[in-house]
């Protein structure tokens, strides 16, 4: 479904991604883990189109993504849930969700998606009229994820959904992601620093370190490999 070959990207001369290749099959749950500064967020931004690639290719359902503009990529069925939540703080929860439903598919399935979202996160129904900026961190993360679902995507990309959340809240977010995938049969690409949580729910994992893929494999393979720990902690 998503195929990345030899992707190279840099910010102002600083290399962020160095010949990264990875494959996501339809319906698969793929996790990318690695320490801060490994290039995980950059990779997502290149896929979403907000950062240009220097070289390499990305194809999504056979279509060349790098020659497609960023806003069109959303219409192809890619939902990017950015790091740090990025809700519209002065819009209500419901308005935030409406902003997500700008795609054709999202418009058509609006009622159905809204029911699903409210079933998944009942708190958002209660808070539908509240300004998103006044919600707690965990609730804002729910809004961000729900906004992605509202676009009726085929592929959902989550960038560090656990960042800055208390462990218990982060756990409930991970559970929600697994639930979304089970019910909607979505393809999920997850970027996480917390290797354990990300790897235990995925089908295939990649370990990124200073812009390169240093390890890839099934969760069982990766979880038993001490090089994962070394990627984070050096020794």
């Amino acid at each position, binding site marked *: 479904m998503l195929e990345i070959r030899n992707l190279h990207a840099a910010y102002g001369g600083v290399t962020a991604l160095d010949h990264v290749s990875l494959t996501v099959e339809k319906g698969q749950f793929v996790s990318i883990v690695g*320490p801060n500064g490994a290039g995980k967020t950059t990779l997502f931004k290149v896929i979403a189109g907000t950062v240009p690639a220097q070289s390499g290719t990305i194809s999504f359902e056979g279509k060349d993504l790098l020659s497609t503009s960023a806003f069109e990529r959303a219409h192809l069925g890619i939902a990017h849930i950015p790091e740090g939540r990025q809700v519209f703080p002065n819009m209500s929860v419901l308005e935030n969700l409406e902003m997500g439903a700008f795609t054709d598919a999202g418009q058509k399935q609006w009622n159905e998606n809204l029911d699903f979202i409210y079933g998944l996160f009942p708190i958002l129904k209660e808070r539908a009229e509240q300004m998103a900026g006044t919600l707690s961190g965990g609730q804002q993360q729910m809004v961000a994820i729900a906004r992605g679902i509202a676009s009726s995507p085929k592929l959902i990309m989550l960038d560090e959904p656990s*960042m*800055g959340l*208390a462990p218990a809240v982060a756990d409930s977010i991970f559970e929600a992601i697994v639930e979304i995938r089970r019910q909607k049969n979505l393809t999920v690409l997850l970027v996480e620093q917390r*290797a*354990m949580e990300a790897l*235990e729910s995925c089908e295939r994992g990649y370990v990124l370190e200073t812009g390169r893929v240093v390890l890839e494999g099934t969760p069982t393979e990766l979880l038993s490999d001490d090089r994962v720990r070394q990627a984070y*902690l050096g020794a």
Partner: protein
Amino acid sequence: MGKRTGFFSSLLPLAGFCAVYLVLLFTLQSQYYQLMLILVSVWAVMGISWNVLSGYSGLISFGHAAFFGLGAFTVVLGQIYFGITPWIGIPLAGVVGAVAGILVGLPTFRLRGHYFALAMLAYPLALLYVFEWLGYQEVAIPMERENPVAWMQFSDQRIYGMIGLGLLIIAIIVSRLIETSRFGMSLLAIKQNELAAEAAGIETRKWKLRAIAVSGAIAGTIGGFYAIVLLVITPDTVFGMLTSAQALIVTLFGGVGTVWGPIIGAAVLIPLAETLHAEVGHLLHGIQGVVYGVAIIIIILVAPEGLMWKVRDIMQARRAAGEPPAEIAVAEVVANPGPLPDRPNAMSGRIMLEVRNLSKSFGGLRAVQDVSFTVPEGAVIGIIGPNGAGKTTLFNLLNGFQTPNQGEIIFEGESLVGLTPSGVCKRGIGRTFQVARPFKRLSILDNVLIGAYVGAATDDIALKHAREALALVGLDKNADRLAGGLTSMEQRLMELARALAGKPKMLFLDETLAGLGGVEVNEMITVIRRLSETGVTIVIIEHTMQAMLRLADHFIVLDHGALLTEGKPREVVRQDAVIEAYLGKRWRNRA
């Protein structure tokens, strides 16, 4: 600016310009063309005035007509009511402009960016209505038949031309003095990155107020002279929108942030607009406005920084094509500096920085919670922790960019809480930024010089400190290269030198190694160690853990804003709590 010749090197073109101006003034017989020359000098000075504030500091003003108009009315009303001759009235107009500048600046510098620009728009508009309300719809300068020279009244217009040229020369010299001193460098730093400027020890508010005072003085002076040339003024001609716009347009056209930009702009645009107005104005009413509009559009498309910079870039490119590319000589390349030799005494120095129960919340998010630690003199301390752990917030609290809700920061026995970033810097704490933002148009030396002023009484001492800092990071052989073409490694080294040039006792490094390749990381580690050996205490935030293990004497680990643990690096990374923080809480019990 690093070279002391900077000021004098501009005298030659100045002499040439004066010669051309005078030749034109005395060969053009038509009064009309003489007036045009006078107007060129008026708008060139007005452009320089605008440039001193907006060109150098980047604070765009749409309201320079306020100073211009106040100057004009000072001269005219001073003569009518108090019998003050314009010979005194014009300097007085400069004083009025300076005072107005400070009065406008005090409240308006609270705003930034386009809010500042729009707020500035209000002052001339308000003044326009105030003066109309006071009944000064049209004020004429009274004719003095007794002794016209004493009242600056001449039948020969060329004398006005020479006075205009004289004022222009004064404005050029003032502008040049600013540009070649720490005044101009501070304004440039503010333009580039106000926060970084504060961190380099520049009191941004003070320099901005000085800039608007000088700018107001120049505008007031030339406004007063303009009134003498016109003989009759109305609030609309001096406070009107076109006055502010013209100051901005001549500068944008000629080149923002240069002395010659406004002069080139005025010399091209004023005659062009006036001639078109005279030739076809009766057919196409308002043709001047169209000329200015088109000039701005062309400039934006072809040379967004103005003609001056475009020409300079083309010449530089041509010169560079002839020369072989400059080879950058970085400090001796070290394949792998290996782990830090065990420094058993590294943590036993005198306590230099003490952080006690520091907390900071943003709304409901507790970014830093009750963090306490100490930093001994001479140590290299690494602050680590997963994404979102509060490292950057902690750094910002220590540097004065944010104020803690609770807690104490004691540096050398003195509390840092509540100090501005420049205040923190003045007490001997330097910092680098994660995203290096060099001043691309300046040489490496000048970039570093900006950071040197804080610890230096004179500009010469600052220059010496800057050169020493460059030697320390190994960039001294390339000091005169422009910063625009530097690699990321060289930019980091330059950033480091800028922080060092202020002679800090303690240095905070924000992800100095991020994005560097393996060899570069080794070089940077070597440089940082060399700094440590000169006695500077170093606190570093860094994600590249391998590098940190080789660099730091001591780790402080943050998680969820709180201090998780601290200790020897190699021991810390094997602690369960740290592994859980990075890899997830169930990592230890996996599989």
